[in-house]
């Protein structure tokens, strides 16, 4: 029964415009403008008019070894955070789904990293990693391991150290999302499978995973994108150091744009980042579609 649908249709524009206008003017527009800036020599604080230079920025970018290094770091960071995050969260979510006695505490604590400003998460972990006054070195010392490392300052340890922080910051959210997904899985099927004598792994493959897959894929794809594009956490932890070992693409582009004023060049970096995320996503989504067709 559809009643007075026509009224909504005419009223719909009135309802939609307040959000649609800012979206178009302040989001879609600037994005297109941003992409077009990548083909110009736009700089901040310059009087000469901005000129169209075609693909020159991209050609420069191709030879910019520092950028590709930051790019590689960005991918290592994004995979290094997203994959363990997902596996740990999957394990934890099934753990919390068992109704263990301390489960409520885990769920209550889960909101904390989520609610904290990323800047504070970064500061907090700087305190943990602090070479002298940090608890990590003291703990390692007390169990006879290590001799007081400068985790964030060491060339080899900095990237792993920030990856741990990345995992910490996103683990609870991922866990809560997967837990909600698990609770949507049909219990009856589980019971039936158990009665039929299916082992834990087979029950997971046949019952849990199919129901969990939409949530799992969505959260993993989003986590990957967010991680690849992230800024604040690593900016506070290391500002990209030591020696550029943790300089994520966003940090690089930020410096290029707002320290050196190279707007056009930084916009070109943004375009390359978008392209990579798009490729990763389409591979991911293609996998999702073909597998969806199978089942």
């Amino acid at each position: 029964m559809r009643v007075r649908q026509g009224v909504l249709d005419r009223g719909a524009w009135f309802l939609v415009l307040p959000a649609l206008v800012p979206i178009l003017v302040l989001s879609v527009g600037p994005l297109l403008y941003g992409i077009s800036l990548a083909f110009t020599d736009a700089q901040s604080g310059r009087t000469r008019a901005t000129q169209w230079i075609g693909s020159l920025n991209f050609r420069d970018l191709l030879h910019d070894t520092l950028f590709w290094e930051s790019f590689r770091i960005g991918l290592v960071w994004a995979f290094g955070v997203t994959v363990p995050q997902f596996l740990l969260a999957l394990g934890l979510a099934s753990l919390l789904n068992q109704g263990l006695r301390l489960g409520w505490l885990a769920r209550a604590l889960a909101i904390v990293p989520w609610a904290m400003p990323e800047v504070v998460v970064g500061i907090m972990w700087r305190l943990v990693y602090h070479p002298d006054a940090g608890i990590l070195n003291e703990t390692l010392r007390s169990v006879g391991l290590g001799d007081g490392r400068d985790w964030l300052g060491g060339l080899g340890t900095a990237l792993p150290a920030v990856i741990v922080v990345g995992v910490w910051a996103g683990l609870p959210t991922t866990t809560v999302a997967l837990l909600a997904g698990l609770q949507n899985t049909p219990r009856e099927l589980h019971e039936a499978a158990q009665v039929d004598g299916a082992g834990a792994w087979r029950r997971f493959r046949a019952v849990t995973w199919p129901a969990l897959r939409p949530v799992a894929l969505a959260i993993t794809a989003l986590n990957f994108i967010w991680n690849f594009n992230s800024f604040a956490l690593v900016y506070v932890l290391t500002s990209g150091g030591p020696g550029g070992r943790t300089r994520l693409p966003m940090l690089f582009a930020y410096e290029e744009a707002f320290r050196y004023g190279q707007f056009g060049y930084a916009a070109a970096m943004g375009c390359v980042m978008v392209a990579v995320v798009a490729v990763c996503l389409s591979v991911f989504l293609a996998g999702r579609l073909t597998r969806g067709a199978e089942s």
Partner: protein
Amino acid sequence: MRDGRGRRGVPVGVPRRTAHPGSRVVRRAGRAAQYAALLAYLAFLAFPLLWLLSTAFKPPRELGSSHPTWIPRDPTFSNFRQAFDEQPLLRAGLNSLLVALAAALIAVLVATPMAYVLARRRTRLARAVSGWVVVSQAFPFVLLIIPLFLLLKNLRLIDSPAGLVIVYVVWALPFALWMLTGYVRAVPRELEEAAAVDGAGRLRTLVSVTAPLLAPGIAATAMFAFVTAWNEFFFALVLLKTPERQTLPVILTHFIGAEGVADLGPLAAASFLATLPSLVVFAFVQRRITGGLLAGAVKS
């Protein structure tokens, strides 16, 4: 999740598989392993948080010691006082509060009507907007901030809270639409149709039937937008130059000096304070927010 059914959930009348010897021991060991994993998780979650707290209450003497302890031997509030002395924390907190409140209110006001249309009508526009919501998550902020920076500069809105509010509204819109659409779908269409049959006009139906049912969802979305704006760092870093206008996250980074040397006590104290408001908000609406985010994810 515990829905009153038995823990193992074997239906009545179905014979249990015959337990082979030792399976009880195996199950016990399994439980123990589960608790060990849970405790490890709790420790991993809690230990940086506890360390932040511990550091915030330590006098400088203990912070300088090379064998730090978990519990301050001589707890003090002096770090908090010093934090307020060193940086304009109060001012920054007020700036953050104003910007976040304004952004949350405007975002919700603007997004709710549109979310309603998106949820109720499967038009081409609705599909385009949902697509944009997904795509907007994939864009690195540099690509958005450079043009916005130039635009706001032309409007003389750089270094102004109004400019930041505008950016935050646009930034919060995708997720606000996402959450609200889910909430609207949860309001049964039949209720609206029943009201219409009873002779209520469309507006009347919206105001007296839909809006009250939607209110908790709107509130949750507003709080989500508030917390995102309260916590946001990148746009604030780029757009605000004068210290008196900067928001809390930006001010916090001022505690860390140019060489990365920081006064640890005040830094920890200020960080702790900066987290409290969003923590309180999230504690209230956590379930609703997770529900809303997932509703948007699963149902769209």
